[in-house]
């Protein structure tokens, strides 16, 4: 097959477009949806707010989607144990909005507007000296990439996070008080939601970081132009779970997704998740990143990359463990690293 035949296979009919009509359609959409163009001054500050908003959105998305289930028994029941991952598009508007709501707060504190979040066993990250020590501390064999791109040099640093657990108790009073402090009225909380509990567990986890600044490189600036940005992060954790003591999940879902911080598009994306009890939704900034399913280590995972191809992440679940590979690579490099994990 030559170039001409490939061109024919890909379709040679050029679409005839009416740019004036298209521009009118675009203008109407911008006006009806109230969309403002980027403001150059604000653009300088997007990065930190974006990350803050992303963290908040991640918390809301994970909790909300964990609740999109068809009924929960009266006793404690495991309602969320992800076996695969899926992208949930989150717009700049969602991120900015949630970021404003949770400014300066950790995701669990942000959730505190609904009730009480309590660590029963808080995460306590610590650095260890070797992969063997990390495996011993975590209680599972920490996998590492067998091959690395030439841009990744030196030895990694190892971190371990213990198995952590927390309880979240919904409270109608807390919700009302939080709303009152902001001169707003929250949607009424269903009576059987008030006082119900979620039991959340996560970890243990092992994190391996290449290119993280050490005391030496901090002093000499030896890590290059971006001394605080690791070149590669590999994470591995026992799959997190969420259990419930018997709330009406349909009501929970409707209540959470009706909150003013969750856009109709985000709510629709969460509702569209096929099997929410076994799917970990990964918030992906719709305007800044692309994502699509990939096969990694023989299972379906998720690739997330920014539109410029500068940064990539591959996330997958296998044998009761969640894995992620994040770094300044293109897709094929990121997948090669992920597939070389042994």
């Amino acid at each position, binding site marked *: 097959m030559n170039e001409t035949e490939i061109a024919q296979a*890909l379709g040679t009919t050029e679409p005839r477009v009416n740019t004036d009509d298209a*521009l009118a359609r*675009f203008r109407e959409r911008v*006006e009806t*949806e109230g*969309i403002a163009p*980027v403001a150059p001054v604000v653009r300088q500050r997007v990065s930190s707010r974006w990350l803050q908003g992303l963290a908040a959105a991640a918390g809301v998305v994970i909790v909300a989607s964990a609740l999109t289930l068809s009924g929960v028994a009266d006793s404690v029941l495991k309602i969320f144990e992800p076996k695969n991952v899926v992208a949930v598009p989150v717009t700049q508007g969602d991120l900015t909005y949630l970021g404003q709501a949770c400014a300066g707060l950790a995701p669990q504190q942000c959730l505190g507007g609904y009730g009480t979040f309590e660590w029963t066993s808080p995460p306590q990250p610590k650095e260890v000296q070797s992969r063997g020590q990390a495996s011993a501390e975590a209680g599972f064999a920490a996998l590492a990439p067998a091959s690395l791109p030439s841009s990744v040099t030196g030895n990694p640093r190892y971190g371990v996070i213990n198995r952590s657990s927390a309880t979240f108790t919904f409270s109608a009073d807390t919700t009302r008080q939080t709303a009152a402090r902001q001169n707003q009225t929250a949607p009424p909380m269903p009576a059987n939601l008030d006082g119900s509990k979620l039991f959340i567990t996560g970890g243990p986890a092992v994190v391996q970081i290449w290119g993280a600044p050490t005391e030496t490189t901090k002093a000499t600036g030896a890590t290059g132009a971006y001394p605080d940005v690791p070149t590669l992060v590999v994470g591995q954790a026992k799959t997190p779970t969420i259990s419930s003591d018997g709330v009406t999940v349909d009501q929970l879902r409707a209540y959470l997704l009706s909150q*003013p911080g969750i856009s109709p598009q985000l709510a629709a994306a969460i509702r569209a998740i096929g099997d929410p009890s076994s799917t970990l939704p990964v918030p992906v900034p719709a305007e800044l990143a692309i994502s699509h399913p990939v096969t990694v280590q023989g299972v379906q995972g998720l690739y997330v990359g920014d539109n410029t*191809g500068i940064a990539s992440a591959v996330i997958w679940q296998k044998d009761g463990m969640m894995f992620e590979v994040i770094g300044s690579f293109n*897709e094929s490099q990121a997948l090669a690293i992920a597939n070389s994990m042994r």
Partner: protein
Amino acid sequence: MTLPARGGGQAARALSPAFEGLFRTEYARVVGIAHRVLADQAEAEDVAQDVFLSFYRAHSADAVYAAAWLHAAAAHAALNALRGRDRRSRREAAQALPPDATALDDPAELVATSETRDEVRAILARLPERSAAMLALRYAGLSYAEIAAALDVRASSVGTLLRRAEDAFRRELK
């Protein structure tokens, strides 16, 4: 949790001359890239609208990378849309008259064209993202320099990468 009210009632500003200029210059190209992937003009124009909207929200129309960003986003967004199509709807589309093959009169040829088109889309959906994007950009008429700018690769590498993408495409095509 309560959140501050959204400022949705604010009227949107008129499009800047720079953005209108960018839209007029690049719209047909963006649609063309998406159309190579989707083989459906209406869907390609929907993708183009979304791509321009994403750009409008986050980037200045004066940005030096504007065209390259739009080209890359068109390819990626169209590939995402392609992968998101339900298998059943793809089969149904294969049975329907191809929207861009209305000049063909022979029903057998219509079906054959439709089946080939469907198979080609399935291959694009299976190929690695960069290979599929590279094919879409190249066969939409972009130069090597434009492809290099869009996909953030060296211009000197485009020829090699394109050949690999074409080889992968040939292997997949029965």
